[in-house]
């Protein structure tokens, strides 16, 4: 198999995930897009490991070991990320990342929630 096939597929999947991270508004959909990007990297790691284990007689199998580590770290990341999203949803009533602007600089008066939340945080 040409190495170009998995490499091109991984590049396309990565850019799909990039579009999702930039364009989505729901925080859980952003997490899904992050998973797509991580999977693209995994595909690259596996393909290059198979290539190197044959072409360079590599017996360390670093690509597959790193793929397993990436999968485990992605599982940890999705757990922590969903816990954060649920905590934000419980506090703010939304998981829309366009509305979570408390730490943004110079948010306008169009968002009536933001000053109250700021005051609550300042007085608490």
């Amino acid at each position, binding site marked *: 198999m040409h190495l170009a096939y998995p490499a091109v597929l991984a590049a396309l999947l990565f850019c799909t995930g990039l*579009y999702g991270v930039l364009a989505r508004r729901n925080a859980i959909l952003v997490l899904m897009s992050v998973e797509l990007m991580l999977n693209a990297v995994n595909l690259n790691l596996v393909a290059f490991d198979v290539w190197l284990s044959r072409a360079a007689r590599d017996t360390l199998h670093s690509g*597959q070991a790193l793929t397993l580590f990436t999968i485990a770290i992605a599982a940890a990341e999705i757990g922590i990320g969903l*816990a954060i999203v649920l905590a934000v949803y419980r506090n703010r009533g939304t998981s829309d990342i366009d509305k979570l602007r408390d730490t943004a600089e110079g948010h306008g008066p169009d968002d009536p929630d933001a000053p109250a939340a700021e005051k609550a945080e300042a007085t608490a």
Partner: protein
Amino acid sequence: MTFAAATAASMAARAATTVAAGQHGFLSPTGVEIAFLLVGLLTFGAAVVTVTTKQLVHAALWLVVALGGLAVEYLLLTAEFIAWVQVLIYVGSVVVLLLFGLMLTKAPIGRSPDADSGNRWAALTVAVASAGALVWVVVDAFRTTWVDLGGAPAGSTEVTGASLFQNWVLPFEALSVLLLAALVGAIVLSRKAKADTAAGGTKATAPRVPGSRDGEQDKEGVR
């Protein structure tokens, strides 16, 4: 001198790889390549639908198709163990976690018109530009590289286990500590604040700002 030698060596290596891959043209693909291409098209299409659909639950279900297609790609690349780990962890647990998250945040069933934010055209520009650059570079770099898929599988469970527990034991153990930390962190983050005051109120108020979280909770509840 050394530069000339390095250049000659690289030229020789390139000639060798070209000769090695010269007998495999892109216009006469092997069966594995055709299968890889078809499953890759399915995977890419499912990924595109995942990031563009307006129905949030459908996005999670298309993500299952994309991740399952990637597992088939791993099988075609003879990495069996990774493929089954992918099925177990991604399709089995991560997507279920995402669906739970969608339901717990009361995601609307059906079409939600505000699934995409206003900067989707800028995002599309960035994604298409990076895709073009990446595909160009990758194709230019690995056009002549040939992966030999014959012989014993490169990623069978025996091979992967041996290399993992011979060469990668220390990172593996560190990773188990990280998973434990992530588990504890997820529990702490998702615990209700009421339980926080009841259980940790006596011993945990001293180091933190007194009542910061609880006061905020009360105000949020009033609001």
